[in-house]
């Protein structure tokens, strides 16, 4: 139940590749990483959820928190997700209307430019 976080820069975007389970125990690590990025001036962030096996309200809360932070800097937060079981969570909670959700990192970067 480890959470893997890799950050890379693609053009003007910071892409965070997340791997593993995001729950109440591991979510603080993701929250800190996203806060760090914004505090370092990354306001266009892509969170790639393709490697995520589990996501619940705690992870959603962290993503919403990060969205508020980048919006305060006129930035953007978009997600990459094609897994049905993860998309379902965004649909149930109405967050598909809040986050741009893309099929690939390339699409996410093109879409928010």
């Amino acid at each position: 139940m480890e959470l893997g976080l890799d950050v890379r820069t693609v053009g003007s975007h910071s892409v965070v590749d997340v791997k593993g389970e995001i729950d109440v125990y591991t979510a603080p690590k993701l929250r800190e990483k996203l806060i760090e990025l914004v505090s370092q001036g990354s306001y266009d962030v892509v969170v790639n959820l393709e490697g995520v096996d589990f996501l619940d309200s705690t992870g959603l809360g962290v993503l919403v928190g990060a969205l508020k932070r980048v919006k305060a800097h006129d930035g953007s937060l978009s997600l990459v997700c094609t897994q049905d079981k993860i998309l379902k969570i965004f649909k149930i909670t109405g967050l598909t209307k809040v986050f741009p959700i893309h099929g690939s990192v390339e699409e996410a970067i093109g879409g928010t430019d």
Partner: protein
Amino acid sequence: MAMVELSIPPRSAYVGVVRLAVSSLARKAGLDEEVVDDLKIAVSEACTNAVEDTPGDDPISIRWMEEDDRVTIEIADRRPSSNAEDPLDTQGFSTRLTMSLALLESLVDSFELTAREGGGYCTRLVVNR
């Protein structure tokens, strides 16, 4: 009726253990993989809500009950009574708890949160087979 009980400290580190045990029980019970995934989230939500609101060391008890036509999971805690909180934050976003309740309502066939005698709450989740 087959019953499995689990009791954990009210700490976030143990929620994953409950999820692992419940998903193993759910698979053994022959539930579809999609139902197993839904149940993992629902149990995680119930445990997270209990952990987040338990200030002391009172353990959280999880009871798995398997019957022919359904599986019932009860998550019992001793957290203090909470007042209804605003479902949206100051910027109009849903709070974590609002999203948690939406997931609980939607991912199982029946979801109930009741106050326990002696204090605390019991979250009851039912999945029909």
